């Protein structure tokens, strides 16, 4: 190390003959930077909050190792999701995004942690707060997600689904009806079991959906047939405008699976979510049947863009969560305090992401809408094109699939 630094210093001293003192100081500054880079901790160990367990003898690990590379990747992903949601907020207010828009900011650690704990070939299905999962699953340019929000042909579902209906390989949406995705998830898990590829299905739902009857039907089927299904309840404390105490007789959502083992996880800690997901995935892959995870998280926005989000909770509450438990800040602080990243580096990443989001928004705004010829496609599967009535009796559109 010392030799290398001497070599570099000499090289700069050589250049200094031409430019004098200024270059020497440049050289010394360069040398100082090189020292910091080499001093980055490649990985560090962090404590994780203990999870509450239900019908489990032991839970996920209480300590985990985070590498610099992983940390930066999680940070980048979460920050991209955050900025994407905020940009969507802006576009919605400008009426470039229409319809309904349910934003995920505050809950980034859940999506990123889950993705970190499973394999790319595993399956995920969620409800309508789906923008984050679309990004983590597909790792596509954000611009395709934004183009779907604005209903353009470059979108994930070619501009026909919109905010609630986003799909990707091994990501089954993006579903509008509360709770309806859970039996679907159990079905996907059955396919995983049947095909024997050691895959699991992560089936997400919210605290509001936890009271739907079909959830319990799915629990029963999954447990009966030992399906490799990880049921995850993202408990963000409010089902639209109703707080969990006012909606559920039992707010211990991780216990609601009754005969299904469960664990309650701090959903604002991306590492905690990652460990818990790894634990749950191992549980399922070992053939023990389904498992239920409750992620305690929080959303900063209201239920959707038409909900200001402050009529059923105080601004102070939102502010408190933002300042004390924000997932992105927590990760950043951990990385910096353990010398795995520099403040400037993080700032650079932020700037890059900002640019990326701006470009994505630009694309989403300027991309053309799907053409009329494609508007009615994919109603049925049919070999010959089907004729579909347009908005008046004299126009016919073709539907192919």
């Amino acid at each position, binding site marked *: 190390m010392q030799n290398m630094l001497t070599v570099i210093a000499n090289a700069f001293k050589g250049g200094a003959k031409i430019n004098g003192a200024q270059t020497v100081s440049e050289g010394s500054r360069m040398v100082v930077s090189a020292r910091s880079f080499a001093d980055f901790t490649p990985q560090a160990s962090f404590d994780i909050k203990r999870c509450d367990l239900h019908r489990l003898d032991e839970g996920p690990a209480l300590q985990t190792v985070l590498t610099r590379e992983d940390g930066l990747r999680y940070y980048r992903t979460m920050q991209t999701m955050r900025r994407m949601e905020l940009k969507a907020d802006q576009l919605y207010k400008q009426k470039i995004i*229409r*319809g*309904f828009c349910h934003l995920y900011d505050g809950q980034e650690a859940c999506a990123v942690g889950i993705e970190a704990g499973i394999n790319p070939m595993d399956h995920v299905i969620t409800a309508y707060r789906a923008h984050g999962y679309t990004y983590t699953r597909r790792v596509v340019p954000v611009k395709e997600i934004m183009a779907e929000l604005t209903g353009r042909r470059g979108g994930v579902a070619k501009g026909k689904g*919109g905010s*609630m*209906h986003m799909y990707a390989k091994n990501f089954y949406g993006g579903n*509008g*009806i*509360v*709770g309806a995705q859970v039996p679907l998830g159990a079905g996907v898990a059955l396919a995983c079991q049947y095909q024997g590829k050691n895959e699991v299905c992560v089936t997400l739902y919210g605290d*509001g*959906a936890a*009271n*739907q*009857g*079909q959830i319990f039907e799915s629990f029963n089927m999954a447990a009966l047939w030992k399906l490799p299904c990880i049921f995850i309840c993202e408990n963000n404390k409010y*089902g*639209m*405008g*109703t707080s969990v105490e*006012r*909606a*559920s007789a039992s707010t211990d959502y991780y216990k609601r699976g009754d005969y299904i083992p469960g664990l309650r996880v701090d959903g604002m800690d991306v590492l905690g979510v990652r460990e818990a997901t790894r634990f749950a995935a191992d549980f399922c892959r070992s053939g023990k049947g389904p498992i239920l995870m409750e992620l305690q998280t929080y959303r900063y926005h209201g239920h959707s863009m038409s909900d200001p989000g402050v*009529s*059923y909770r105080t601004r102070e509450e939102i502010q408190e969560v933002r300042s004390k438990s924000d997932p992105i800040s927590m990760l950043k602080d951990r990385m910096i305090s353990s010398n795995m990243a520099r403040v400037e580096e993080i700032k650079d990443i932020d700037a890059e992401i900002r640019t990326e989001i701006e470009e994505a928004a630009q694309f989403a705004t300027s991309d053309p809408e799907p053409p*009329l*010829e494609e508007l009615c496609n994919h109603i049925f599967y049919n070999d010959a094109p089907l004729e579909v*009535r*347009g*908005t*008046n*009796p*004299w*126009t*016919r*559109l*073709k539907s192919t699939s």
Partner: protein
Amino acid sequence: MAASRLFWRTSGVKSSLTGLTGGVHSSLGLTLLKLYPDCTAKPKTQRRHAAHFTFHPDPVTTQYGPTQKMNLFQSVTSALDNTLASDPTAVIFGEDVAFGGVFRCTVGLRDKYGKDRVFNTPLCEQGIVGFGIGAAVAGATAIAEIQFADYIYPAFDQIVNEAAKYRYRSGNMFDCGKLTIRSPWGCVGHGSLYHSQSPEAFFAHCPGIKIVVPRGPVQAKGLLLSCIDDQNPCIFFEPKILYRAAVEQVPTEAYHIPLSQAEVLQEGSDLTLVAWGTQVHVMREVAAMAQEKLGVSCELIDLQTILPWDKETVCKSVVKTGRLLVSHEAPVTGGFAAEISSTVQVRSRSHESEIDQGLLPECVLCRRSVSSTWRLPSVGFVGMIRPSRTSLSPSTSQISGSASRPSSA
């Protein structure tokens, strides 16, 4: 152009002029064809149009006492207020109704009547309706809200298998007549797949329940109060686009508008228009346009109650005008217009022996042949009924499902 804009609504306007591209046999049809210069069978570039209709308020009614300016959601609140005041067993429940509801239909009621009478349920439609049926059977006037008609399907089993059949299967020992289910209904412009549906046709297939759709605040309050008082389980669909847009002078006291009575809003002699909910206002515009541009006099009927529907009024009107056009927001195939048009056909056929030939229904699309094979008006896309020579019984007739031109004898 106003006319073409009308037909380019982003929601599906069903009309009976589908067969115009096939043989047109009357001058009315040809004239209509000319009115829409873009009427060709081939797909064309459509410009994007915003959903368009103008709400036409009813004239102020004096028969029910003093009135107050209210929009649709306020008239619903008023009806519920009247009910909670006069009926001590009345309870209102549903998702988010306590703070006033996502469409403000229950604002102020919890404060006024107490949290044991106006309360929230968790997110479980099947549970809400099942619970409502039980409460009604036990004697409470149960008014359940389903937050959007699009979410009513988990409750479909409860409505069809439990609510509708309770009285029948218990031999009148039990009934859930005190149950009323209210739900926002219909397109709103940005609702997309799950905030725009009009599911009345699904439920129309089920005897034992009543289905009602008002066109404005005055109708809404009167019809809702009738539904609540009716001794049968009722589903009351409220057009959500009218919640704020429809403003009328609504009586403050309780009043009832009878169920299963269609209302003739405008008399005419050439064509009968039937619609319900928001579409009534669209049809009003259509009638005015037809009068102005074509000199066609339209009779406009608001069906109001979908099930059981007022067959007499509609058939009587069709016998008078000879032509029928039904329009609704719901998808065309299996929509309630199909039921109306097939009933009108059957009924008008059965009138043949009693009515002067000149009054027999004739349609734009078909001509009555001198031969024994009747070609009856194809008033929708349902197709035509070709009865056998001697019998009028529907069971012996052939029904052809083609939506295109009438076939020759």
